[in-house]
């Protein structure tokens, strides 16, 4: 009893000290008013920060206010709730523990592969409204609750051309969450209403993203997704992503071939359809193509099709095989390879895009499999799953000739290097906090400053027991070395898997004036990003700095030590 009293006294004194200190150091208000005041001033604080950002950059930066009438605060629906599991027919205890029923079979492959809803630019403008809805959709035999843009779980496809103006109005119809958009892989402005991660769109509010795709931008497959720190994993896992394709000015890539977009997503759902956040084990994880479980992909014998994969799963790394077939990889992350690479399996890291040519074999049925993968002792094991069925039938066709890029990417092996940097991915012991160079993400801290015009070599080191995927916004890079082994020039990437206890050396140009501003680099396994494995980078124009008397953006917002 004495001990209980002592503990209570200790806790009371700690609480008292906390409150007293807050009162003494914080304001003249009594302690109980501190948190209320902080809450009320939050919006004002953000507005002030954004106004300052606007003043310094000259760009329009929106603060999106929600309507005055807000629905009552509700508990989040995605809390992992063991009690929602019932003894539904296909959800036995064994299934829950071992996930035995997860992989679809050939008999599940009934529907042909569909194409997601598509919006194309017209007369140089793509003007589209993406309304987020929380919806219930049928995926195979499962009914699941998802969040989607315009009701399309696979995500609407935005199709544009270099030089186009992109106007995307994002309407946040989520019940209780803020959100935003990141246009992954695009080298467009990170400022104002561009690919600006400082923007957050409140529940019930709308924001118009507007930017121009440079006329020199590489055609290829890109994507867009929620990038709301701390809940990006949740929102992407729920379905908030879609594909963006930049077609070449004259038409599209491989116009003679049938193009199959393959949007890769995954979900886990309770028998009642509640999608729940991926727990560590992914026991009931189900992987879809274009929002379909085990679609049928029709081909003629000998026909070559262009398959354009985008990995839009929050955390997965895919390892895809097609029995009896090889893949001819022609592009990665929107960049054509110098020449096709023939392989038995395609590895697609988180956020990665891979274009492959597939030559159909003899008539028959072939299963497209995402093979079992391991991401390390501290990571995950993902079971193999059948993800599609290729049905080859009909008249014989002739395969497409080998692909050779007409304009291979510049080789950065022999360019001058202005700066070398080290980026280290680490985790704490229980993999709860993730770090870039020893620090978790702080939106107000600029971690790296780069003068416009620099060509830099970065070493990305993974000092942890699981794989990470390095991604940088607004910039592409060439992989020079992996674990000290020189790599051939296979074009540019915007994300790369970094081996455990290993290193990747990359080179990139920061010489495109359009990227001046603040953006991010991070691990694109979104669980890791949300746990802090992200950093801010600012590209600044030294000439513009010299010409102005205003304090530069980085000084206004820099809290930490710039490197």
């Amino acid at each position: 009893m004495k001990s209980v009293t002592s503990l209570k006294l200790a806790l009371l004194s700690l609480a008292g000290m906390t409150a007293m200190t807050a009162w003494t150091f914080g304001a003249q208000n009594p302690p109980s008013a501190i948190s209320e005041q902080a809450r009320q001033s939050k919006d004002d604080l953000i507005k002030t920060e954004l106004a300052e950002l606007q003043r310094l950059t000259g760009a329009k930066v929106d603060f999106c206010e929600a309507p005055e009438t807000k629905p009552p605060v509700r508990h989040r629906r995605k809390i992992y709730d063991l009690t929602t599991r019932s003894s539904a027919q296909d959800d036995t205890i064994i299934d829950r523990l071992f996930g035995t029923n997860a992989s679809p079979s050939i008999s599940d492959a009934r529907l042909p592969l569909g194409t997601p809803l598509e919006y194309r630019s017209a007369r140089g403008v793509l003007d589209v409204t993406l309304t987020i809805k929380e919806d219930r959709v049928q995926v195979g035999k499962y009914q699941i609750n998802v969040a989607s843009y315009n009701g399309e779980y696979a995500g609407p496809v935005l199709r544009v051309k270099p030089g186009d103006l992109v106007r995307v109005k994002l309407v946040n119809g989520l019940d209780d969450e803020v959100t935003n958009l990141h246009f992954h892989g695009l080298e467009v402005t990170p400022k104002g209403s561009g690919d600006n991660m400082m923007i957050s769109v409140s529940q019930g509010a709308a924001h118009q993203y507007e930017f121009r795709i440079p006329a020199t931008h590489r055609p290829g497959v890109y994507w867009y997704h929620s990038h709301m720190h701390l809940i990006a994993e949740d929102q992407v896992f729920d379905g908030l992503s879609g594909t963006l394709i930049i077609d070449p000015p004259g038409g599209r890539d491989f116009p003679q071939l049938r193009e199959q977009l393959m949007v890769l997503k995954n979900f886990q759902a309770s028998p009642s359809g509640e999608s729940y956040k991926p727990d560590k084990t992914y026991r009931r994880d189900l992987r879809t193509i274009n929002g379909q479980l085990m679609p049928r992909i029709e081909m003629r014998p000998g026909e070559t099709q262009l398959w354009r994969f985008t990995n839009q799963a929050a955390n997965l790394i895919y390892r895809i095989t097609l029995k009896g077939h090889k893949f001819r990889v022609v592009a990665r992350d929107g960049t054509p390879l110098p020449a096709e690479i023939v392989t038995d399996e395609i590895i697609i890291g988180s956020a990665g895009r891979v274009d492959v040519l597939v030559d159909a074999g003899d008539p028959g049925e072939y299963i497209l499999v995402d093979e079992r993968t391991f991401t390390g002792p501290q990571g995950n094991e993902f079971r193999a799953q059948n993800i599609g069925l290729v049905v080859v039938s009909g008249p014989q066709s002739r395969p497409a000739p080998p692909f050779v890029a007409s304009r291979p990417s510049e080789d950065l092996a022999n360019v001058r290097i202005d700066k070398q940097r080290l980026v280290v991915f680490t985790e704490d012991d229980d993999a709860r906090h993730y770090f870039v160079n020893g620090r978790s993400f702080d939106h107000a801290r600029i971690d790296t400053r780069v003068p416009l015009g620099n060509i830099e070599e970065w070493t990305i080191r993974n000092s942890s027991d699981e794989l990470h995927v390095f991604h940088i916004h607004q910039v592409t890079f060439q992989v020079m070395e992996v674990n000290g082994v020189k790599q051939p020039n296979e074009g540019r990437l915007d994300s790369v898997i970094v081996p455990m206890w290993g290193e990747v050396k990359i080179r990139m140009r920061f010489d495109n004036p359009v990227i001046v501003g603040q953006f991010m680099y991070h691990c694109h396994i979104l669980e890791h990003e949300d746990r802090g494995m992200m950093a801010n980078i600012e590209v600044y124009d030294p000439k513009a700095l010299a010409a102005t008397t205003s304090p530069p953006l980085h000084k206004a917002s820099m809290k930490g030590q710039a490197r």
Partner: protein
Amino acid sequence: MTAPLFRNAALLLACVVASSASAHAQNVDFYPIISTETQLQFQYDHIRSSDGTTLKRLNFNGAHQTIVDFNPFLSFNSLITMEQVRDPMPGTSTSIFSGEGAYAEEAYMRWSDQVTGVKLGKFTQNFGRAWYMTPGIYGADFVSDYQLSEKWGAELSYAFGLYKFGRHQVSISDFMADRTFLSESLFTNRGHLSLNDGGPTNTVAPNSYVATYDATNVVLPWGTLSYQLSAATLGRGEGDTGTEQRLGAGFNLNLPIRNGVAETLRGGFTKINLMGEAVRRWNADGIAGRNIDYLTGSAELVYGPWFFDLSATDRNTALAGDTTKDRLWQAAIGYNFLADTSLSFGVARKDEGGAMSTIFGTQLTYTLTSCDRCQILAKKH
């Protein structure tokens, strides 16, 4: 006796709680964030002693960790542990889930900006690492002697050299044994620790201290090195004839053998972990002149989901000119299923106080992440 570190840490924690409440306004709405993880473990041991006795023992070990993040800096951490808290009676040949008790091993507030850190509450002290790093079912049997767990105290830490040459941290801690109701256990009550029980750290005021220097992720040409140097002085409990003092030094070396991305994804990642630690205890357990030396070495081969462990510990106890040499070696093989379940088999040979014993055992561990950063309140702007 006053305990300035304890008091100052409490004040510092109070200050940072107040200051961090208004920091990072953009993220405030996402908090509090709750994470819970439960580990369930069944262990079967078959112990044959040199005196001909045999003990067959089936135990359940559980651990439930809860972390509540109030903001990016401040969190509450707790660890509830269930294990055998009372040994079987001598002569027992079969023990099934006997003497199992659950208790609060840790309950503390933590503030950290990743450079400076403060802990306040009941937690395991940062002295030595072999007691949690030695691989294998029985690898930590001797070295758990010097684990400083269930201590109330305050710890200050400061990290420097954040990444280029590894992460380096110094920490100091001021603590005492837990004599609150949290020293008891449910199901099987292990009893309430009182001052009369004596023993180092079982003191009226927190007058035990640990100072530790940790270096992690120091990259070498052939691998990655972590090491720790630590010193401790433990306050005398009632009846103690000496003040226990300790020094410890340990390292572990991560040597990747096959770590290509494709190999890893296919399950072929291979590495070797080497670990070594030496600890000296003067006036061990508060007994003047009783000195104990520990020397531990281990090697673990990780091959995809497989792991193979070897470890050995020497424990030499010197008292009044007599030296007792204890030896432990063990080997284990195991497999990780779907990253949350592991099954391992082990064998150990112990020479303890002149009595030899051989242990065969198996361990099944299941980890359930029941709440992964759950957010209770809606997020609104």
